[in-house]
């Protein structure tokens, strides 16, 4: 048992994910156990097809495991109804994607405020939250710009603001620096890092070692199995599953 003082924000236990069945079945994850604590940034590295994106979508409740449990702040997402899961997703989990996924017809502030409004927060308050998040990522002055009028790095900052608005405790990032040049990519990692230093748990999926190196721990995934990790890790929490 872990004796860590902080509670895990994310805990995956023996997670399997099989796409399709019979002959055509693809085992994306084969018994992955994985924990991210508050204040920690964990990177997941692996070649394409290793299961790293599946891991992230399952961690965020966007996909369901075939077996195993997925706890976010102590709540097992697997046991929840669709509506409850969607609610947990909105209030606890923030996503950052490679393609930014901003709504082009909305300003930066409106994009960031959107998840708060979906939570039922009044629009004045949602806008205040959005401005605070934009301030945190250093682009408060761009609040009323539209995505098309921003550089890639600025758009990704908006996406990060959207992922952290309203004090979300789990930030999931899938190749967030993919489309950016090295220096802009580094600024994005600095922001993710700062958010984790401020108490969030972060999971960063990447195939770039240079970016993974910003994490406290790096988990290596091969064929849906965690093969190794590096960093100051509570190893017992990481490698419980092992090879099937």
């Amino acid at each position, binding site marked *: 048992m872990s004796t860590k003082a902080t509670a895990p924000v994310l805990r995956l236990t023996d997670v399997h994910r099989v796409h399709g069945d019979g002959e055509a079945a693809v085992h994306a994850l084969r018994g992955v156990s994985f924990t991210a604590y508050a204040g920690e940034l964990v990177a997941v590295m692996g070649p394409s097809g290793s299961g790293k994106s599946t891991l992230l979508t399952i961690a965020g409740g966007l996909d369901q495991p075939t077996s195993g449990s997925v706890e976010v702040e102590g709540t097992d997402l697997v046991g929840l109804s669709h509506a409850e899961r969607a609610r947990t997703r909105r209030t606890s989990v923030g996503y950052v994607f490679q393609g930014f996924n901003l709504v082009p017809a909305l300003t930066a502030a409106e994009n960031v405020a959107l998840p708060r409004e979906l939570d039922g927060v009044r629009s004045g308050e949602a806008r205040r939250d959005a401005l605070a998040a934009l301030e945190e990522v250093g682009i408060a002055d761009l609040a009323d710009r539209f995505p098309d009028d921003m550089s890639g790095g600025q758009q990704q900052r908006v996406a990060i603001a959207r992922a952290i608005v309203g004090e979300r405790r789990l930030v999931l990032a899938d190749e967030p620096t993919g489309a950016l040049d090295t220096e802009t990519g580094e600024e994005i990692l600095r922001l993710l890092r700062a958010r984790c230093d401020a108490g969030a748990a972060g999971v960063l999926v990447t195939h770039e070692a240079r970016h993974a*190196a910003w994490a406290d721990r790096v988990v*290596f995934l091969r064929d849906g199995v965690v093969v190794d990790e*590096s960093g100051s890790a509570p190893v017992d929490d990481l490698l419980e599953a092992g090879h099937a």
Partner: protein
Amino acid sequence: MSVKHALLSLLEQEPMYGYQLRQEFEARTGGTWPLNVGQVYTTLTRLERDGLVEPAAHDETAGPDGDDATRTATQTQVRYRLTDAGRDEVATWFTTPVTRSQPARDELAIKLALAVTVPGVDVGTLIQRQRSASMQALQDYTRLKRQAGGEQERADLAWGLVLDSLVFAAEAEIRWLDHCEARLRRAAREGSAAGGAR
């Protein structure tokens, strides 16, 4: 690493004492390649012999020690400056590419070349262990970068660039290991397919 050229290029800035050269070098490279004082003085002696540096004359030594006593004292109290030949040498150094005749990471490459040919070596584990070790080094460099922060000072910027160099080299090593692993797995698959067809 060319200590000779490093010292010469520092003297391009202004005449300096031996200990100063060492400090200035380490400020720019963050002590990644520590120089010992003895090495600095031996190099300066050789540079003076080759006519690339000379003791600075009083009027050029702006400091308070530029009197006759300095000229006659031990080497540690001598301030050196570039000669014209030395200045040419620096210019040539900065305009000539570094030769890469000696690949830097040959121990690992050789180890892997042997591992895939000598029977009984678990190459997959070898690669993964190396990858973890290289990743840890990369994490350490990145931590240093985070601490380095501001780049107001020119020397901080230089140190930041040296760190980036270490980061990119470690990254390249990890990419190469990934590539080796992928190729070995493909070779293993093709090998077993060929074996099955026989």
